[in-house]
């Protein structure tokens, strides 16, 4: 099976081929080209499974397989390479992308039935998959840029799929421009980071060499900070981090399978992936790490709050995606390399599931709004249970995939010896509550209560349900490879570890600092989990040190049980669901929660007093004020800044053009011509027609010349 790694390039090549074939011949085929897409993705998926198997079972850390050929000279002896870099991270992304893409392809065959641009849609899906895989397989940052921008284009074309309506056009443009703004950072960052590599090889963009050089400390701090912050800017925009997340909710204007594939599972995680790829570089600077962590924390919390007040099902999921991406980012920012990409991995499955489920619902009721749904569990049983699985996975219910990965993120926060670590842990925990709450709200509103649909809903067909089932299974199962129940030698952590990461450490962490930090973390937890108090063993430090990892090392070693975290997560989950149940359990729309909950609130106040408090001081402020404020700030302030920047630019353009270009610069040119004519008009009077005046001028001229001439000596 070794050969599979060498043929990894086939994985991106197959979707490219199918994209071209669909575009060329799709309309002539019985399935209008969709079968080509499914077929190629199926093969690509099988290949990916093989590659994943190879890399997963290889002794860790696996030596990456890199093949590249000179694509073109670039001048100055440098070359552009087209290459592949296959290691665990690549394999993991391959698996995720091809699987979700395959599911979405199958799903779309039914979902998009009868659309006028059906073939175009499938060509674009395939093209997108190719682009994403091209980014993933890239062995150099330049190739990554290419994939990065191509996914952006596909995203643009698919968001604007229903381009007859203006809001959809605007959404597509917004998405492209906001992400393109981030691309400024990517381009500049890649360029900046290529400079120190000039001496190293012919291809200054090579990722492995860059990582190695950074880990060896061969790259200056200034370069790293500038380069990585710039690249981070790109990740902020692509991965929907605040404040550049504004495009992502709007992007829901695209068809729902697109939202599932692009705006939930794959493309938006490109930013996370890229940072993970360049983690050894990023890990060189505490500043960069801290910025990443803080942005992630802000995002994960506030985006989650916004999700609370949405009626549009897809928007809830979109804000949820933003929030989850914040988790991943925050994890990367506090040293949780494995945690971040693990969450990326599991999130891809359950969020794709949720979106596809939402698509199934929308397909049934012809509306995005939860106020048009209700009681769907009866009409759509398969959709119902798969959706619930996805929801609990997202909400972090213990022993689901989301639980394992989110716990890893929180634990990473605990490990981190700096302030951002605690921030990630606590805010992350709080946001977990929010997550659970809004997902519960969604479930209750959609599946419980009474049907408010204008159409009699019906379960979707097999082609839509099958992907739901597959993804639902994975939403549970995928978490286990990164969980303590799995083998210590071959788990998610070892899978995605790279040799550079395994050897590298944080240069800014003093030898004993990380240990202290862990200790501190232990103390923090001591209060919450008395059973493990007095022992840092909770954090399984021994395991890591047993593996021979130094104090400042980047990889944390194999996962272990963190009972305290487990309990807290469970508590948070239950509390949230319970709270949601109290509020939305009747499945009634939230038009007037007070009215709905009036008697219940009274009872609760009378009996426990917690509900009223929770409602008044938690639900109301959070849902009605903080969330609305967040929504407002997101939609008005931040979006307004983007819109304002756009308007300002357009105004500036208008002014520049009207005033500067047309009047000043062009006027200067015209003015020169004009003044020549002006002088000419004045001067011509001299030619009066009177010969004696001519003679007089002549003589005067002679006299002047003679005098000047005689004096000139």
């Amino acid at each position: 099976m070794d050969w599979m790694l060498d043929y990894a390039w086939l994985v991106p090549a197959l979707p490219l081929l199918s994209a071209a074939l669909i575009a060329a011949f799709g309309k002539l085929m019985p399935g209008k080209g969709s079968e080509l897409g499914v077929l190629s993705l199926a093969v690509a998926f099988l290949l990916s499974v093989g590659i994943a198997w190879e890399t997963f079972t290889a002794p860790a850390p696996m030596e990456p397989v890199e093949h590249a050929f000179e694509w073109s000279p670039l001048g100055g002896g440098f070359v552009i390479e087209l290459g592949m870099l296959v290691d665990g991270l690549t394999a993991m992304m391959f698996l995720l992308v091809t699987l979700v893409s395959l599911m979405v392809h199958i799903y779309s065959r039914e979902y998009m039935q009868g659309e006028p641009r059906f073939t175009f849609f499938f060509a674009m899906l395939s093209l997108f998959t190719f682009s994403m895989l091209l980014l993933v397989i890239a062995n150099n940052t330049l190739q990554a840029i290419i994939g990065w921008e191509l996914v952006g284009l596909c995203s643009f074309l698919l968001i604007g799929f229903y381009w007859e309506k203006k809001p959809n056009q605007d959404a597509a443009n917004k998405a492209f421009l906001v992400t393109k703004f981030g691309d400024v950072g990517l381009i500049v960052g890649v360029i900046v980071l290529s400079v120190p590599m000039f001496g190293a090889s012919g291809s200054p963009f090579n990722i492995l060499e860059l990582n190695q050089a950074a880990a060896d400390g061969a790259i200056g701090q200034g370069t790293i900070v500038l380069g990585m912050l710039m690249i981070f800017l790109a990740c902020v925009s692509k991965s929907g981090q605040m404040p550049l997340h504004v495009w992502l909710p709007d992007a829901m204007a695209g068809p729902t399978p697109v939202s599932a594939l692009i705006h939930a599972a794959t493309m938006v995680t490109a930013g996370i992936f890229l940072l993970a790829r360049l983690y050894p570089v990023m890990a060189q600077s505490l500043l960069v790490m801290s910025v990443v962590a803080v942005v992630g924390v802000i995002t994960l919390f506030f985006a989650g709050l916004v999700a609370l007040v949405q009626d549009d099902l897809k928007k809830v999921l979109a804000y949820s995606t933003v929030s989850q991406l914040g988790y991943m980012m925050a994890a990367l920012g506090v040293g949780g390399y494995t945690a971040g990409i693990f969450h990326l991995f599991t999130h891809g499955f359950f969020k794709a599931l949720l979106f596809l489920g939402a698509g199934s619902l929308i397909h049934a009721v012809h509306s995005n709004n939860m106020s048009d749904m209700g009681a769907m569990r009866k009409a759509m049983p398969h959709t119902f249970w798969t959706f619930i699985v996805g929801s609990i996975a997202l909400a972090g219910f213990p022993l689901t995939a989301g639980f394992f990965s989110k716990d890893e993120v929180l634990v990473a926060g605990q490990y981190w010896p700096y302030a951002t670590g605690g921030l990630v842990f606590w805010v992350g925990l709080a946001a977990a509550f929010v997550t659970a709450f809004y997902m519960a709200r969604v479930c209750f509103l959609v599946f419980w209560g009474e049907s408010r649909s204008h159409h009699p809903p019906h379960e979707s067909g097999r082609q839509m349900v099958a992907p739901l089932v597959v993804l639902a299974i994975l939403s549970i199962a995928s978490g286990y490879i990164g969980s303590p129940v799995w083998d210590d030698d071959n788990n998610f952590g070892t899978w995605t570890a790279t040799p550079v990461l395994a050897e590298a450490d944080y240069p800014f962490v003093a030898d004993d600092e990380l240990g202290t930090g862990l200790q501190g973390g232990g103390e923090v937890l001591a209060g919450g989990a008395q059973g493990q108090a007095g022992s840092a063993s909770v954090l399984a430090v021994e395991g890591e040190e047993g593996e021979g990892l130094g104090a400042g090392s980047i990889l944390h070693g194999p996962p272990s049980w963190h009972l305290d975290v487990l309990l807290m997560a469970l508590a948070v989950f239950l509390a949230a669901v319970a709270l949601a149940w109290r509020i939305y359990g009747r499945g009634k729309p939230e038009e007037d929660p007070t009215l709905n909950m009036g008697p219940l609130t009274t009872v609760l106040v009378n009996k426990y007093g917690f509900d009223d408090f929770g409602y008044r001081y938690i639900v109301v402020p959070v849902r009605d004020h903080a969330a609305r404020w967040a929504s407002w700030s997101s939609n008005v302030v931040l979006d307004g800044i983007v819109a304002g920047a756009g308007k300002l630019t357009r105004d500036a353009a208008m002014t520049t053009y009207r005033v500067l270009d047309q009047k000043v610069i062009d006027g200067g040119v015209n003015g020169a011509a004009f003044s020549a004519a002006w002088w000419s008009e004045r001067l011509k009077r001299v030619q009066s027609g009177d010969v004696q005046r001519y003679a007089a001028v002549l003589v005067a001229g002679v006299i002047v010349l003679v005098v000047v001439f005689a004096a000139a000596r």
Partner: protein
Amino acid sequence: MSLVGPLLLATFLFCVGIYGVIARRNAVLVLMSVELMLNAVNINLVAFQNLLFPAEAAVSGHLFALFIIAVAAAEVGVGLAIVLNLFRTRATVNVDDVDLMRW
């Protein structure tokens, strides 16, 4: 004999000539003014030849003067013809009336 006298005379004649060309309206008088200027030149040449370079074998000063006299005669002939023609077409010999063409 001093050179000053002839030179002063020549200069005076020349200036009178210039004045006449510029100021007189009558074309015939303008022609005569030109003649004055040419004669001033002749006086110069002859005076220089006689007083400064009496030994010059080529006697170029005198020769020059002779040529100028001849050419001036031709010029005046042509000039008078032009003036005559002008008079026939316009019934005026005033120079400043001739300004059909300008700018």
